[in-house]
């Protein structure tokens, strides 16, 4: 990917239009909504979109009340803000659902690998863990016998299930995608994913394609 969202490709930074930006936001929104795990953050998109909205809102300050043009702009802003909010909510919901695993993954991340959390999300996740652990301790664990005062949140909170099925739409043609046939391990087979075609299959097999943007979830 080479657009305003990838911070590690400065040398071939392409300019994208605001319209393309909105398309990217909507795609990120739906991918996040439908993928069982937390996806890589898209804070560059979020920031660009917020900048656009802020800019537009500033202009609108000068508009007259009841101005039809201003009204149209406001309606559009409301729509974009909904997508933005819903996208960020989906992420927060997953962070709350899987926090020990997400933090563990961040910890074991190699230097230079992309982070899945934004800095702010990371603060939120760490606070959520600390808050929850401290609550459990104060109310119950510290009153338990010495050998039972510890609880491993990693084991207690369920992991995201990557074997879940997803619906997807193909953006870039893919060849030889391995499908594990459920009734027989020997009967694995491959499929080609034609551009524009739609499929129902296991998330684990296509997770890299969601990450690279070759397919989008629907």
């Amino acid at each position, binding site marked *: 990917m080479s657009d305003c969202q990838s911070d590690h490709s400065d040398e071939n930074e392409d300019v994208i239009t605001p319209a393309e930006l909105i398309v990217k936001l909507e795609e990120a929104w739906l991918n996040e909504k439908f993928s069982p795990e937390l996806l890589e953050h898209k804070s560059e998109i979020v920031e660009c979109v917020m900048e656009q909205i802020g800019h537009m809102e500033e202009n609108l300050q000068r508009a007259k009340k009841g101005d039809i*043009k201003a009204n149209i702009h406001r309606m559009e802003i409301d729509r974009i803000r909904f997508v933005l909010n819903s996208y960020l909510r989906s992420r927060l919901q997953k962070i709350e659902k899987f926090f020990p695993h997400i933090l563990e993954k961040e910890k074991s991340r190699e230097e230079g690998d992309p982070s899945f959390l934004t800095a702010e999300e990371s603060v939120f996740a760490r606070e959520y863990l600390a808050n929850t652990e401290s609550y459990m301790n104060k109310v119950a664990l510290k009153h338990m016998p010495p050998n039972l005062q510890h609880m491993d949140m990693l084991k207690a909170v369920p992991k995201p*299930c990557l074997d*879940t099925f997803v619906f997807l739409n193909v953006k870039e043609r893919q060849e030889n995608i391995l499908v594990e046939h459920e009734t027989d391990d020997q009967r694995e087979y491959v499929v080609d994913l034609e551009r524009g075609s739609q499929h129902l299959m296991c998330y684990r097999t296509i997770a890299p394609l969601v990450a690279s943007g070759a397919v989008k979830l629907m």
Partner: protein
Amino acid sequence: MDPSEVEFLAEKEMVKIIPNFSLDKVYLIGGDLGPFNPGLPVEVPVWLALNLKQRQKCRIVPPEWMDVEKLEEIREQERKEDTFTPIPSPYYMELTKLLLNHAADNIPKADEIRTLVKDIWDTRIAKLRLSIDSFINQQEAHAKLDNLTLMEINTTRSFLLDSLNCMYKLRTNVQPSTAAEKTMDY
């Protein structure tokens, strides 16, 4: 996903309106609209068309496919074929509802159109159930779902995905156990 969110996506589709006001080009973040001139057709997203219509600032021109004869043809085709036939709009259901609810006076034979679209929907949903049943029965791992629309997927999404998830887990039971036993299950 809530159906209102699918409808939200449908509202981005473009539709032709005939405005009764004039306005210069509007430079939206998502692209330019207009200019608007009284009596001259112009394409706008459905969300805007409906708002203008509610404020009596335009007449909506129904999409070409929203026509009794065309829909009858589609219905016959849908009934004849076992697979999902290509549909003229990926948001046919949402657009029908939106336009008929808010601009019925601009759409000839609105009631007939409502019935036809509902027939098409019902036929497709019945097919969808058949394919879900065979997917589960054959314990498939992949299905190609061309021409299925988002709203159609969405009505059965949670049910289908949860069912597949259960089946997957029960399938894992059948394979000789390799997973390490969890130690915290007391």
